[in-house]
Structures are given as C-alpha cells and as structure tokens.
C-alpha cells in the first residue's frame, strides 16, 4: 500500500495543527458557528443527535494492521470502544468530544491517517473495488489511480467550496464492486485497441433525493490525463452547479439540466486547454505510485496444500463460511476473506475495539498486514493462503466476525439512522434487528441466495436504498416511522434503480412484508434464478399483489 513520504506526512501534520488552531478559536468564541461548521465538516466532524461524530478517511478502503490498531486505540481512549464502517469505506466514531478531536487527529496522523475531506462540500474519499489487485478477472489495479486522485484532491484550493459534496469511484474490472454508476464521477480502467491504458468516464450519477445512473462522458481517456480531465469536470461544476438549493446542487442535477451532450461539450472544450499540460501525470510518477501496490510475496506452493480440502470435508460450518465468505484470488492457493460486520443482532458495520485488534492480528499473521473496508460495510483480508483459512475462520468465529452471510439478505447496508444521525427521519437499527430475528435460519437465507438489502433512514440515501435488490427507506409520517420498500435496484455493472413496491409499511410490519415478498420470489423463481433476476423478468406487479393482498 502507499506509504507516505516526508512531504505527505508534513501535510497531514500541518493539517492537524491547523485544525487544532481552528478548534481553539471556535472554543474561544473567535470563530462563528457558521464558519466553524464549514471548517469542521471539511475535517470530518459532524454534530450529531447525541454527540459529535468524527469520520476518519480510509483512502480507497485500504489500511494497514498498524492503522487499524490505532483506530481501535482511538475508539477506546476517546470514544465508547467501537467504530462504524460506512458506505464510503470510512470509519466513524460516534462519541468523541469536540475539544479532543485535535488530539485524535494527532494520534491518527502518526500512522498516516486523517479525516481530511470526509465531509463537507468538497471532493470526498475515493472508493474502489475491495478486491482490487487480487481479483482473477481484473484488467488493471485501480488503487494507484485512487492514490493519485487522493493527492490531487487533498486540500485542492479551488474545490473546497463546491456546490455540494463530490464522490469519485474507480474500478479496474468489468465487474463493478464500487457502485461506480451512482457516483458523481465513475472511472473504469480499460485498455483501448492499441493496448493503452485509460478510463471510461461516467458523470452525474448519484443517489439521494434524485437517484440517477451516471452517464458516459468519454469512452477512453488516456490514463496520464486523468487529473486534467477531473479538473475540467470539477471546474465546470464549480462554476455552473446550482448554489440556490442544496438539494439541487449535485453535479447530476447540472448534467440533467444541461443535457449530457452540452455538458460533455463544455468539459471537452475546457479540457483542450488543460491536456498535455502540467497536470499530465508523468510515467515516472505513475510507476512510482504503482510500485506501492505491487503483488505481495505469495507462497508459490500455496495451492499444493491439502489440509483445506480435509477441513472442508469434515466441518460443515467451515464449509458454509468458505463458500459464502471467501472469494477467488488471482494467485493459486489464495483466497480473499470477507470479515462479516453483520452479526446476528448488531448494528451493521459496527466493530468493537477488540474486534479491530483481532482483525489486525489476523492480517499480520495471514494477510500481509493489510485490511480493506468495503462499501458494503464489511472488512476484507485479501490475501490468505488456503492452508490458513481454517485458523482464520476459527478466530473470526470466536469473535463473532464469521457469520456466513456475505451477499445474503442479512448482509445489509444500513445507515445509522435516527439513533445517531440528525438528518434521519426514521430509525434503521431496530428494523435491521427485526429482519435479523425474522430471517435467523441460515438454511433459509442460503436458499434465498444472493440478495442485496440496503436501508436508509432518510431520503439522503446514505444506505444506498435505491440500488438495493431490496431497498428500505425510512420516512416520517406524523411522528411515526414508516418504511417504503423498493425492489429491483442494483449498484453493480448492471446498475438500476429500485421501483416502489407499494405503500409504506409500519415499523412492526417490515420483516413480515419482506417474508411475503420473498415467499413470492420463491414461488415465482425458476431454477437458480436470483431474486433480482426474477424481479427483472416479471416486474414489480406480481410482488406487489402478493405482498399487499393480505392486508387489504
């Protein structure tokens, strides 16, 4: 992974000092509430329902064991001993004290972590495929490009007061595990006919109040021009994006209003003045950054191991976990392991300090001391030799991190909802628990197969409900929590937005409604057909009929 040089380190050290000064001036009354708001947001600090919330960046979801240990330390020393992983692959602490945040940042900076631009109307953490660099079907590793974007976007003087937040995702494979089509900018690494590396560029995707799938603005952007092209897009957006209404300020609204042709024309015209200029990334720099993401020294004989098959034959729980929570690796004899942060009854994405340390230990012992966070709110140990899987599983099981539910209904993406977030209209964690209680039976879950369930506590859609195979949106009706259900969404390469199933259901009825929905699916599916495919084949109508027939 990328290791800071002296210059990179100096920047985050200086940023900590700068933020400490800003905090002190705010406490001393020299900085207005409003001014400090913009400054603290650019450093990841929200004021939430209960307490401030600090969001720490995990750039493109990659962290070292040492970093995860420090996150554990911070959660213990400054918070309540746990953290929460988000759909931007960052980690949030829900109970820090405002005046202690500079100390937290100082501690984080010692291991090259920071909270720069994890909120506010600026360029946020770039996300990518959590199997980057290891997936057998990958074209090219997207992480060096994510790091180049990280550096370019960090404290960019021109783009710190954008109309609204700005999110970029990069993929390096025809499979999209980064929800790139619902990002402000989605970048797909591709090779052209001449074999040169470049990007297919999408713009104007997003969720929130107005969910939109991104539109293609360029088929092939030569890779060294990545930053000049992003700069062109950002400049047009900064100048033309709406400032009068924060709900219409994202780039997707601008692209819709101008039309993709006109928007493309403006970006391309401006880009002509930038390309082949200073922003063009020299090959030497591409090579320098790429070298940080070179393959690990894998064991050549890893595939010769015979113990895995023995364990798989003799232990059904292990076999189930292996099938569900481990994934193919390009290196023979290795697997990627998903550490499930979706236990039976626990807030999705939450992790305790002890669990962080356990995962850090495992990473050090078995996965080259690196951990990834996924936008689906789990962790990944990306490089585990097959001979080590059994021990990894045992340790994870002991610490409630091995629920064999990855990709299944209970592997839910859930925002923290009303319990924590001051924007939320409805609770989410109680509904997640209700779903967990109802769908406790693992065999049934496995029979239902791959289902992406996403839930948000408000229209801002942090839980990506529009692109869940099943989406649940919490709404407030006269002071009561109600839930609107959508089906048919996807954030993958076949991205689509879910359609509303019918009228919202009361809080107590959510899981029961899902039961009827899924019974209908089981009745209607053809052999081997996933839920999403059945919905695509038949449309919403038969599901709506079956689900609401009972009540009416």
């Amino acid at each position: 992974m990328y290791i800071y040089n002296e210059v990179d380190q100096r920047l985050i050290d200086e940023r900590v000092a700068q933020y400490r000064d800003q905090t002190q001036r705010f406490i001393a009354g020299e900085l207005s509430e409003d001014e400090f708001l913009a400054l603290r947001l650019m450093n990841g600090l929200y004021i939430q329902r209960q307490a401030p919330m600090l969001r720490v960046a995990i750039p493109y979801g990659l962290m070292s064991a040492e970093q995860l240990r420090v996150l554990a330390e911070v959660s213990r020393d400054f918070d309540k001993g746990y953290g929460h992983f988000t759909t931007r692959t960052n980690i949030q602490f829900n109970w820090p004290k405002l005046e202690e945040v500079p100390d937290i940042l100082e501690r984080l900076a010692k291991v090259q972590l920071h909270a720069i631009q994890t909120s506010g109307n600026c360029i946020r953490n770039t996300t990518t495929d959590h199997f980057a660099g290891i997936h057998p079907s990958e074209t090219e590793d997207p992480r060096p490009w994510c790091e180049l974007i990280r550096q370019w976007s960090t404290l960019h003087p021109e783009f710190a007061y954008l109309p609204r937040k700005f999110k970029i995702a990069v993929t390096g494979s025809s499979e999209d595990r980064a929800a790139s089509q619902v990002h402000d900018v989605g970048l797909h690494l591709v090779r052209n006919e001449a074999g040169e590396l470049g990007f297919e560029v999408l713009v104007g995707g997003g969720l929130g109040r107005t969910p939109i799938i991104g539109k293609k603005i360029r088929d092939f952007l030569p890779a060294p021009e990545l930053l000049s092209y992003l700069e062109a897009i950002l400049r047009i957006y900064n100048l033309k994006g709406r400032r009068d209404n924060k709900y219409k300020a994202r780039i997707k609204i601008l692209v819709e209003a101008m039309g993709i042709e006109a928007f493309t024309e403006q970006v391309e015209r401006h880009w002509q003045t930038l390309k082949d200029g200073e922003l063009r990334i020299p090959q030497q720099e591409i090579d320098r950054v790429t070298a940080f993401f070179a393959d690990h020294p894998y064991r050549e004989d890893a595939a010769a191991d015979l113990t895995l098959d023995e364990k798989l034959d003799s232990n059904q729980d292990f076999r189930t976990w292996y099938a569900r929570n481990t994934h193919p690796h390009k290196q023979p004899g290795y697997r990627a392991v998903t550490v499930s942060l979706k236990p039976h009854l626990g807030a999705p994405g939450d992790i305790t300090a002890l669990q962080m340390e356990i995962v850090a230990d495992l990473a050090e012992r078995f996965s080259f001391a690196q951990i990834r966070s996924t936008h689906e709110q789990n962790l990944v140990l990306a490089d585990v030799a097959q001979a080590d899987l059994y021990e990894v599983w045992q340790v994870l099981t002991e610490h409630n991190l091995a629920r064999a539910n990855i990709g299944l209904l209970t592997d839910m993406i859930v925002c923290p909802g009303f319990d924590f977030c001051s924007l939320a209209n409805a609770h989410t964690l109680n509904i997640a628990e209700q779903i967990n209680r109802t769908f406790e039976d693992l065999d049934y879950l496995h029979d239902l197969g791959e289902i992406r369930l996403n839930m948000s506590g408000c229209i801002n859609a942090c839980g990506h409900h529009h692109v869940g195979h099943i989406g649940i949106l919490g709404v407030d009706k006269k002071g009561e929590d109600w839930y609107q259900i959508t089906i048919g969404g996807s954030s993958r390469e076949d991205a689509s937005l879910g359609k509303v199933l019918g009228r919202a259901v009361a809080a107590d009825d959510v899981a029961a409604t899902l039961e009827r929905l899924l019974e209908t699916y089981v009745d209607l599916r053809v052999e081997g057909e996933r839920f999403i495919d059945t919905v695509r084949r038949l449309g919403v109508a038969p599901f709506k009929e079956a689900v609401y027939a009972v009540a009416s």
Partner: protein
Amino acid sequence: MPLLVNREIHPIDSQPEPLAFSEYLELDAAAQAAIKAIRANGEDPLDQLLLHASRFDMIALEFPILRDGRSFSIARELRVAGFSGQIRAVGETSRDKLQFLERCGFDAVELDDELFRREHLDAYTEISVQYQGAVDQPLPIYRQQEATA
C-alpha cells in the same frame, strides 16, 4: 476591516465600491473605457469577463455567501487568461480561506472581521505542501520535485 494586499495589511481604500460587471456591460463603449475597476461574481458571464478583463486594474470577486466558492474558479480563470491586475476577494471572506484564495490567484482580500489580528497572516503558511498546481505554484507535486532536481 483590513485590506490585505500581497499578505500585507492596508487600510481599505476610500474609493467608492467598484461598478458591478453587469452594470458595466450596459454602458456604451466610451463609458466602459473609463472604468478601471469592477466587481463580479458567479452570476456574471465568465466569457464576457475574460474578454474585458485586460482593461481593468482591479477586479473584485464576490463571495456572496460562505458556501459559494465560484470565485475561486473565476480568479483562476482570470490568471490563466493572463490578467495581471489586482484580484480582490470581497464578501464572505475569512482568515481560513486566505491560503486557498492566494493559491487561486487572489492577491488582495477584504476581511470583514473585527477580530482581525496580525497573527492571522499565519494562515498563509499553515500548510506548506501543495499537491496540486494552482496559480501560485503551477506545478503539481509530481512535477515540483522534478523542477527542483
């Protein structure tokens, strides 16, 4: 209310507020020729501003609200187009924007801040690393090392 010019504190000049660029555009050519300073913001047509810019000694770019960052890009465009007069930030400016303002090409800032102290000039040097090229340092980080080597 101090005026900073090239990081130095000046009293605000007593001249009247410069003409709004939208009003300037309404004038006939002769009247336009007499105008040496204007104020503009993100609502004004940028192509027109770039076209007329070389006639002005000073362009005041407005930050009408704290969250409006359009003038950062406008200043940058003016400098790239070769405007060498003063670009002054007015409106919702603040100590904590000073470094970004300078990086984008502002050489003057009106600070509407009763609490302004000389120490606030430290803001210009709080962050010494510049990853991306801008007006002050046109080279991104990966070309800075090359240039000094």
